[in-house]
């Protein structure tokens, strides 16, 4: 195999890589694809791990797929790949259920109904709510159909585009929502979908966020039964059926070049040659570890300085002794908000200003920020009685792995986050059999992602860094990951589709 030559090599078997390669072998069936990953399973974040003793399978990412109703980009792509029948999609009833104190507000999985529900609950903010949903329908929609806009199949209203560019692009979600609303709880509820793309309200660009709301709410969402791993495995199967090969447990040591052209990769399992190499890894990692010194990468490195990672997550996996929905966690997804919803953003900003002081960070991220809870059992009972708690976090206040401090901190994270869940859903108390914590360091370990970010780059108000790959000096290298596509499954598939369309054999 070492001497064989390939048409394309994919460094990393994450979801963008798998989707792109599956599309390529469908378009060009004789194509020889080699994919290499250091992990033992395909999928990157779109993977699972199991605990047989607990009869549980844990999903490493929240595999809530956006764009899954008619008119959605992702459902169209999945249909093009003939994957829909094999996927067993689960369409949840609610967008999510918002909890604060003893009050639960389950938001319908339909934009118009959510608008009505919020207008009813926050009658004093009715005007702002109407403006907000109009912004989602216009500016959010334009962002969502960006690729179609570029190929001419979607006609944007130029005046809208220009307005958004001048007035919305430079605002954070925090600023955008505070201009419309003064009710802090409403602001926290509306900012919560930012969690799907790895950003709090002070992080994300408002215009981009409108697109995220449009994608997840107006264009529908669904889960895959059998979790994200099932989706990744199906894509891998397509690649292998077409003669492609996937090497797991194999580390790529270097991307090889011949003059200013890429020529292949060197791995733990030998050297492989190809005129095209797709990098499905954090670009910071790739530039630091995969390219030989002496290449003229300084301009790319300089541009990359502006590309900030999205937040990482701390995740608590729980196994219960009875079906969680029978213990009171009735919705597939819940967002739990602090008693004082106005406190979270200033607390996070203060913790960061003060050099990520550990106590301040724990209070800000774990204690006050919204936490996202998924009842996986309600989506797929075969994977066990699993509940998963996610909170956007920062690696900066986590000590190194394999230290007593790290282990103690993991314990504290579980205590704080589980206790918040139990306060909102007291029926779960006494029914938790197993608790396990994944930290930002866990994610670095399995994905090499910068600062453990599970979402690639942060889409803030400054987007300069997002063009880091423009004019990359080595011909034949393409960057293909959430770091360029944007966070979420839908962005990954959309970008993979664009790359596959551009494919020409060398």
């Amino acid at each position, binding site marked *: 195999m070492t001497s064989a030559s390939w048409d394309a090599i994919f460094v990393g078997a994450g979801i963008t890589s798998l989707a792109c390669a599956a599309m390529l072998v469908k378009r060009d069936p004789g194509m020889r694809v080699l994919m290499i990953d250091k992990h033992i399973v395909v999928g990157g974040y779109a993977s699972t791990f199991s605990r047989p003793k607990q009869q549980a399978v844990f999903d490493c990412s929240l595999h809530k797929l956006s764009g899954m109703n008619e008119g959605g980009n992702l459902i169209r792509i999945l249909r093009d790949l003939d994957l829909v029948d094999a996927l067993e999609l689960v369409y949840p009833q609610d967008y999510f259920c918002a909890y604060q104190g003893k009050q639960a507000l389950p938001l319908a999985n339909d934009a118009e109904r959510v608008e009505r529900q919020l207008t009813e609950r926050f009658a004093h903010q009715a005007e702002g709510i109407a403006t907000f949903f109009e912004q989602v329908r216009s500016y959010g929609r334009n962002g969502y159909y960006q690729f179609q*806009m570029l*190929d001419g199949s979607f006609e944007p209203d130029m005046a809208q585009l220009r307005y958004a*560019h001048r007035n919305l692009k430079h605002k954070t979600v925090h600023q955008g929502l505070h201009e419309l609303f003064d009710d802090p709880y409403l602001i926290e509820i509306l900012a919560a979908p930012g969690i799907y793309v790895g950003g709090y309200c002070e992080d994300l660009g408002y*215009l981009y966020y409108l697109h995220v709301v449009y994608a997840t709410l107006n264009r529908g969402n669904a889960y895959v039964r059998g979790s994200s791993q099932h989706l990744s495995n199906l894509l891998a199967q397509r690649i292998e059926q077409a003669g492609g090969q996937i090497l797991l447990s194999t580390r790529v040591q270097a991307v090889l070049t011949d003059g200013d052209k890429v020529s292949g990769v060197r791995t733990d399992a030998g050297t492989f040659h190809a005129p095209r190499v797709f990098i499905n890894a954090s670009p910071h990692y790739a530039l630091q570890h995969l390219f030989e010194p002496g290449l003229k990468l300084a301009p790319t490195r300089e541009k990359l300085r502006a590309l900030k990672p999205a937040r990482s997550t701390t995740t608590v996996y729980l196994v219960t002794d009875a079906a969680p929905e029978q213990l009171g966690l009735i919705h597939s997804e819940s967002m739990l908000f602090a008693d004082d919803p106005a406190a979270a953003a200033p607390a996070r900003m203060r913790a960061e200003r003060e050099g990520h002081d550990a106590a301040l960070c724990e209070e800000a991220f774990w204690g006050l920020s919204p936490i996202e809870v998924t009842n996986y059992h309600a989506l797929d009972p075969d994977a066990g009685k699993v509940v998963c708690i996610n909170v956007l976090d920062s690696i900066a206040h986590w000590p190194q792995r394999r230290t007593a401090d790290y282990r103690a901190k993991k314990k504290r994270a579980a205590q704080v986050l589980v206790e918040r869940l139990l306060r909102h859903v007291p029926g779960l108390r006494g029914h938790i059999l197993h608790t396990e914590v994944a930290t930002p360091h866990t994610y670095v370990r399995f994905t090499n992602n910068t600062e453990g970010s599970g979402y690639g780059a942060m889409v803030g108000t400054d*987007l300069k860094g997002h063009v880091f790959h423009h004019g990359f000096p080595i011909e034949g290298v*393409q960057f293909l990951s959430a770091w360029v596509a944007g966070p979420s499954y839908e962005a990954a598939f959309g970008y993979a589709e*664009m790359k596959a369309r551009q494919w020409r054999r060398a």
Partner: protein
Amino acid sequence: MTTVDSVFSIVRELILELKDVDESDVTLDASIEAMEFDSLDFVEMQVVVQKKIGVALDPDAFANRNITTLRQVCELVVELAEPVEATA
């Protein structure tokens, strides 16, 4: 007919509207770097070129070709606008 100059006048007008740059700095030989374009600016430029000149710039044209100056952008648009005449 689409010429480098006609494309440039459209691109120039757009840049002046989008970015806080000095008018005298937006020349054909200015680097794209100097315009500090971000990914959304590229989208808007591509949409405007599509609408006004009828040329669909590949979203990744900037990544794949070594385009560093505004002249090269305009030349690419001209190239795409003019169908290549078949040689007998």
